[in-house]
């Protein structure tokens, strides 16, 4: 009598379904991490750009001749609070311009400086984003701020 034994190598339907379930679960977990990564990247980008904007404005204030009260690049008058909008490329834009996309808003204020012949001039600068959020009334998504003292004598 000729007896044949057949072996069918492979996985059962239950095994395959379970494996697919595990794979799908992992993919969904991965999918959930993506926005977090992109958001972190965006935050780093914003902070780097904001730091550049700050440096540029401080350099402009520093370059203002002592005989003048108004800075040459951004037209900031010492003693008068001002805010400016910048796009992602670090250019000054006006929020009403339909072609512009303001990303950052810098608020420049002049805290009370000490009196005296050689007293420094204090300037406080804060870059916030998104640009169209007023940090005085709404908490912005992020900000970078600095405080500078200038010798204007």
């Amino acid at each position, binding site marked *: 009598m000729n007896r044949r034994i057949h072996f069918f190598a492979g996985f059962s*339907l239950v095994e*395959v*379904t379970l494996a*697919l379930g595990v*794979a*799908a679960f992992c*993919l*969904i977990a*991965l*999918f959930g991490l*993506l926005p977090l*990564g*992109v958001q972190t*990247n*965006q935050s*780093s*980008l914003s902070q*780097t*750009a904001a*730091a*550049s904007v700050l*440096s*540029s404005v401080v*350099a*402009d204030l*520093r*370059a203002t*001749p*002592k*005989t*003048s009260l108004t800075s*040459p*690049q*951004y*037209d900031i008058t010492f003693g008068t609070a001002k805010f400016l909008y910048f796009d*992602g*490329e*670090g*250019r*000054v834009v006006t929020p009403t311009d339909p072609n512009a996309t303001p990303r950052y808003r810098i608020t420049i204020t002049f805290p009370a400086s000490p009196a005296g012949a050689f007293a420094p001039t204090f300037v406080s600068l804060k870059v916030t984003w998104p640009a169209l959020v007023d940090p005085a009334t709404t908490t912005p998504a992020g900000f970078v701020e600095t405080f500078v003292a200038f010798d204007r004598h």
Partner: protein
Amino acid sequence: MLVAISVLALLVLLVTQLINNAASVTILGNKRMDADSHVRPLFERMALDFAQIVKRSDVSYYVKTAGTPMTGNDLVGFYSAAEGYYPTTPSPISIVAYRVNSNSSSSVAYNCLERMGKGLDWNGASATSIPVVFLPLTIHSTWPSVASSSAYDDTDPTKRTYEIIGPQVFRFEYYYLEKTTGSLVAYPTAWASLSTVAIKDAAAIVVAIAVIDPKSKVLLSNSQIATLVGSLPDYASGLGPGKLLAQWQSALDSITNMPRPAISGIRLYERYFYISDQ
């Protein structure tokens, strides 16, 4: 089972698309951060150099004047109290110079911003090292590399005093904020030639640079970058704040014969460097 596999395949496709899009956004952001991070220390170095520029009427400067108008990438050379590389006994004075290297044949510095920070000996300290020279001797006649966009002051590569400070910077332009008028000018009116330069006529030096990140740079050949340098116009007196960069951006936007991803990776920066009255 077929349905399960189809769902999985769909999920994989979806995730792949998402990852691709996220990667595109991240790469774009990283390019910007890369350029920003590259420029920040460069500007800080320049700020230190310009802040400590030696302001005397008996030393020379190699700067842009009516007699040396400088087309394309500019050259600048001056004495500064910024620390330099000293040969022997250090004096507090160095020669500082900036240029974009234009030597296409052999230099790894081609199309990169270079800085010279050559420390000088005290006068009389060495029989071989040249110290600070006073007028009528000039910087560029004593150290000719200051007035060159490719030459070095020593044939020995290990002794060259120019170093690459901005490998991603391919365009370097500067102009002045004139002290007397408060206007931005290509050079102050009184600067007819190098011999009439009085650095105190300038309240600030405005530096504009174009930067290309490494990922975008590999898409362009050196000759294409050289063409780009020529496409970005020089500063002309009368252009207001930000106008030079606007002109550069327009010039970049109008370029159609180079890869768009490379051109869009170019970032433009401008910084005012105060020149102290002291």
